[in-house]
C-alpha cells in the first residue's frame, strides 16, 4: 500500500495539472456550441453548376497527350504520369483535373494539374481564381483582406498536407477560407470560434507542434503515467472502503468516550459516532488533533493512544514503529469508534 500511495503521489506530481487540463477541456467540448466550433458560420455551398456542351469537349486522351508534351517542354517537376482525369468545372466552365499522384485521402499529398476541357489550355489556380472560388462559398459581410499562398502548412487545418490559398475576410469573426492550390478544392472555413476550440483541442491532445493528431511522444508518456495515477487511486479507494472510511453518518450510533490527557488523567468525555474516524469525530467536538495530511494516513501526525488491542491499519504499520504499535499508539484518522472506551490525547 505504501508503494501504491507513493506511485499515486509521484504520478500526480507529473501529470496532475495536465489531468486538470484534460478535464476542463473535456468539459468544454461537452458544453461548447458544436456548430460554432466548426468555423462554418459564413460557409455556403458553391452554387455554380457545370454547363456542358459535349460537342465542344476535347477527349481526355488529348488532355493526356498535351500534358505529356507540356511536361516534356517544361522543366518537369513531377513525373508526367496521370492516374486519373476527372471532368470538373470552374464557375460552370468545364475543366479536366488531372491527378498525377493520388493521396490516400484528399488532405494527404496530392499532385494535380488542370486544363480547360474545351481548349486544352493549362489553368493554374492563381490568387485571383482562388479568391473567386473562396468568395463563392462565403456569405458573410466581410471584404477580402488578403490572399496568401501557404506552401508549407495550414495552421487552421493542421492535417492538410497540400499547399493552399488562404483568403482572409474582414468580418467580426476573422473568417479565413482555404482553397487547395492544385485543384481549387475548398479545404474549409475557419474563424475565431474554431480557432478557440482548436486551442482547447491542442491542449487536450497535447499537440503543441500542431500536427493534427494525438500521437505525440509527450501525450503517450503522460497517458502512460496517468494510467498509474488512476489505477493506484482506484486501488486506494477500494482499500479505503475495506477500512471502513466510506460510511454514511446517517445510520450512525453515538457513544460516550472518555478522554485522557497525556498523563492519563481524565479530562472529560465526548460523544462520538461510529461511522466517522476519530480524527474527524474529535474535531467535531472542538478537540483538534494535529493533522498535516488531512486524514490521509500519510503524515503520521494525528497520533493518539488507544489500547494495544486496537486493530492496526496499513497506514499505521507504516507510520508508527513496532514499539509504538505495541504500546497502543494509533493514527486517529485511521481508527473508528469500534469498542474503544477511552482515548489518550497526546498533548
Amino acid at each position: 500500500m505504501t508503494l501504491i500511495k507513493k506511485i499515486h503521489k509521484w504520478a500526480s506530481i507529473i501529470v496532475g495539472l495536465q489531468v486538470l487540463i484534460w478535464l476542463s477541456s473535456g468539459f468544454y467540448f461537452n458544453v461548447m456550441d458544436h456548430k460554432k466550433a466548426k468555423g462554418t458560420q459564413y460557409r455556403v455551398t458553391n452554387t455554380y453548376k457545370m454547363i456542358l456542351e459535349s460537342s465542344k469537349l476535347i477527349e481526355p486522351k488529348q488532355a493526356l497527350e498535351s500534358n505529356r508534351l507540356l511536361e516534356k517542354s517544361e522543366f518537369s517537376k513531377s513525373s508526367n504520369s496521370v492516374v486519373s482525369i476527372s471532368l470538373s468545372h470552374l464557375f460552370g466552365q468545364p475543366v479536366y483535373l488531372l491527378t498525377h499522384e493520388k493521396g490516400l485521402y484528399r488532405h494527404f499529398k496530392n499532385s494535380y494539374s488542370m486544363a480547360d476541357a474545351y481548349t486544352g489550355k493549362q489553368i493554374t489556380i492563381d490568387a485571383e481564381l482562388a479568391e473567386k472560388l473562396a468568395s463563392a462559398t462565403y456569405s458573410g459581410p466581410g471584404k477580402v483582406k488578403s490572399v496568401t499562398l501557404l506552401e508549407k502548412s495550414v495552421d487552421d487545418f493542421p492535417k492538410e498536407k497540400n499547399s493552399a490559398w488562404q483568403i482572409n475576410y474582414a468580418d467580426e469573426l476573422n473568417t479565413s477560407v482555404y482553397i487547395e492550390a492544385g485543384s481549387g478544392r475548398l479545404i474549409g472555413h475557419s474563424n475565431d470560434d474554431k480557432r478557440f476550440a482548436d486551442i482547447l483541442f491542442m491542449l487536450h491532445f497535447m499537440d503543441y507542434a500542431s500536427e493534427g493528431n494525438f500521437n505525440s511522444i509527450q501525450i503517450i508518456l503522460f497517458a502512460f503515467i496517468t494510467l498509474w495515477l488512476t489505477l493506484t487511486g482506484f486501488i486506494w479507494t477500494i482499500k479505503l472502503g475495506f477500512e471502513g472510511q466510506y460510511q454514511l453518518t446517517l445510520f450512525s450510533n453515538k457513544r460516550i468516550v472518555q478522554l485522557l490527557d497525556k498523563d492519563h488523567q481524565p479530562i472529560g468525555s465526548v460523544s462520538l459516532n461510529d461511522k466517522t474516524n476519530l480524527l474527524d469525530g474529535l474535531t467535531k467536538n472542538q478537540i483538534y488533533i494535529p493533522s498535516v495530511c488531512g486524514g490521509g494516513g500519510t503524515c503520521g501526525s494525528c497520533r493518539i493512544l488507544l489500547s494495544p488491542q486496537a486493530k492496526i491499519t496499513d497506514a499505521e504499520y507504516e507510520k508508527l514503529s513496532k514499539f509504538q504499535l505495541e504500546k497502543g499508539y494509533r493514527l486517529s484518522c485511521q481508527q473508528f469508534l469500534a469498542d474503544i472506551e477511552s482515548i489518550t490525547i497526546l498533548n
Partner: protein
Amino acid sequence: MVESLIQRMEVRVNKDQIQESPMSERHVEKSNSSLLKAARKTHKWLMLFLGIQFVIWSVTGAYMVFFNIDYIHGDSLIKNQQVKLVDSQINFSIKALLKQYPQAKNIQLESFIHQAVYRFKVGKDNYLVSAISGELLSPISKPDAVALAQFEYTGSGVISHIELITENPPFELRASVLPAWRINFDDFGAPTLYVSATSGKIVGKRHEFWRLFDWIFRFHVMDYQDSEVDNTLLFWFSLLGIFAGLSGLILLYFRLLHSRLLNSRFFSKDEAEINNDDSSLGLKQNKSAQK
C-alpha cells in the same frame, strides 16, 4: 526542546482547558487544515463515484494515443496503387459516353486494377464502364472484387470470407456505399476491405484495432446512447471530475509543502525512531526528565 515540540504539536483541548494561542500563525494553520480536510473529503467521496470513470478515461485515452491514428484508420492495409493511364487503352470517347449516359455526373477516367475505366454517377447510382470497349462493368463480379482487394491489400492476402452486402450494412460501413463486397482477410487484426460493387473502388477498410477504437472512443466520451460528445452524463462526470481533480491537487500541494514543515516542525522520522523508547512514547517520563 521536547517541550517546545509538544507545544507546537497543537494544542487546544476542550472548553475547560482553553489555552491562549498567541501565535497568529496558528489561525493560518487552522484554516489551512480545514481546507485540507475539505479537500481530503471531496477527493475521497467524489472519487468513490467518479473513480471508475477516471480509470475508463485513462485506459481508453491511453489506447487512443498509443496506437498511431493512421494505423488505426487502416492506412497500412492499402497500397494506394498509382496506376498510370495509358493512351492505348482509351478507345471509348467521352462524347460517346455522354451520348449513352446523358445524365452522367462526376465523370472520371481512372483505372480498375490495370484496366482504364470511366466512373460516374447517374443520380445516386455509381457506374463503371470500360474505357477500352464502352462495356458496362458494374455491378462487378465476385472474382473482380476479390482481384481488386488483393491488388490493393498489403498483407499476405489469404481470404477468409467474402460476402455481398446489399442492405443492413454493419456499423462500420456507410449505407450510402451499398451494394458492396465484404472481403475478410485471414491476417493479424482480422482486416476487412469493402469494395463497392458499383464503382469498383475500395470504400472501406477496417481491422480489429479500429473496430475497438470506435468503442473505446464512445466509452471515452461516455456516449452510451448514441448522443455523441454533448451528452448529459459526460457533463456531470466531467464537471464533478474537475472538482475531484482540483481537490486532488490541493492534497498534493499540502503533501509536498507540508511534509517539509512536518519534518522540521514535529519530528523527523529518524528522530521519532530514536525517541521511541523514551520521549515520544513515554511522554510523561520524558517530560519530567527534561524538567
